[in-house]
């Protein structure tokens, strides 16, 4: 009874990854790499988005608006 309970808890805790039962093998290495990169790429991306939005704010007077789609792209 208790072992069933802990098995269920493991399944619940695994929630985000197993709910959609991916038919593709994402690969353990690929999975772990993403977790490792997450912090790095997340910070970089957030920085670029806010920087882009900031620039967009200043460009509004010249008639250009930073569109929602471009917020993730480099303002080059």
């Amino acid at each position, binding site marked *: 009874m208790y072992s069933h309970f802990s098995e269920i808890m493991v399944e619940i805790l695994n929630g*985000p990854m197993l709910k959609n039962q991916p038919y*593709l093998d994402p690969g*353990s290495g*690929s999975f772990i*790499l993403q977790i490792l990169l*997450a*912090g790095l790429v997340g910070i970089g991306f957030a920085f670029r988005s806010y920087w882009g939005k900031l620039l967009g704010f200043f460009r509004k007077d010249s008639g250009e608006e930073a569109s929602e789609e471009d917020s*993730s*792209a480099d303002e080059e």
Partner: protein
Amino acid sequence: MKNNPKLPASFRDPSGFLFFEKKKLYRQVNQLYQENYDRLMKSGLYDHLVKSDKLIPHTEVRLAPPEPDKAYKVIQPEELGFISYPYEWSFSQLKDAALLTLEIQKRALKHGMSLKDSSAFNIQFRLEDARPVLIDTLSFEVYQEGSPWVAYRQYCQHFLAPLTLMAYNDVRLSQLLRVYIDGIPLDLASGLLPRRTRFNFGLLSHIHVHATAQKRYAAEDVRKVAQTRTMSKTSLLGLIDSLERTTEKLELDFSGTEWGEYYQDTNYTRKAVEHKKELVANYIDQANPKVVWDLGGNVGTFSRLASEKGIPTICFDVDTDAVEKTYREIKANKETNLLPLALDLTNPSPDIGWGNRERRSLLRRSTPDLIMALALVHHLSISNNVPLEMVAEYFSSLSPWLILEFIPKSDSQVQRLLATREDIFPNYTFAGMEEAFGRYYEIVAQEDIRESERRVYLMKRE
């Protein structure tokens, strides 16, 4: 033997499969996929992608599904003019397919969805405008906040690795995609790439470190990691952004100017080119085809005689630089009805994959009404020793109509080919060619090209 209408390539995804009924293509959507399908249709994602020409549209139909116990719905996707495979694409075609995949993923996340695979075979190029489009409607799943991207590995193998190899090593390495049907293994790519790729953060992470991580964690049970570490949506967007910028920066070492000079270098005067164009255009009208294949079409100079008449035309060439140049021109000038693809006629794409039936050889996919073989046959018969009769037989199996330009031995181009070898081609003459082709075709018309040694023929299969 049961007549299985399911497409041989459509078996890996339990969400559904493609099948034919009365020669029309349908897709069974399984109950397993119901939540995802409904979300796709109701969230606005489907509408946005179809409106922006990024996803193939479909209609829901009342049709008896082949597997009714599993079925949720049957849909009918819009059919494409031609199916091509990633190993037939030029660098920019593969790159555009890659960037489209990432764009779609970003858009999906805005609607609470995510791509569950990112195979290059999910992208096709439309004949209408040579633009890439996603054809796998069932590729989307509801996004679970916290999950990493399940298709990350596939993106790196199908797109990033081959593009990087083409950019840094040799453009011909796209052919590795023929051998590695699920994309190029990252350890192979990592080993082949030059050291300077390690100084690029994106390539370092997504190829080199990724390859190491794959090896290092191959036997690992990641569920323990999944319990404690998750990936926020911002991080996921950051990952996609990183892949996008890394992919976007990849450029081919390509001048593209050599092919522009092609007609200056060879044996055509201005009058000759004009006359050849007149003749070919006239013969196209006589054949009145629905689809044209220009074999050895180079940069599409003569393919355009058909495509500009509104006839869907595929320009095949063995030289990927020519395919690349044609593709860039089509994009820049927003041309229609022309699609360039890479093809080595002496070794065309074979049947590959499971049971050698998953990805079909060129002939099995579709065939045209008219093929053009202009300034081509000498490459096959002389350079490649294929007897004229075999060329005729092969062409006749492809299409009922043929426009052929024959270049005799007296022409300096052919003399150049024969310069370093023994002339073992006694039948390579006008008469010899007419006799060989006459076994499969009727010669409907022929005319010499003004100011040249060459002759153009219009032939109809008997």
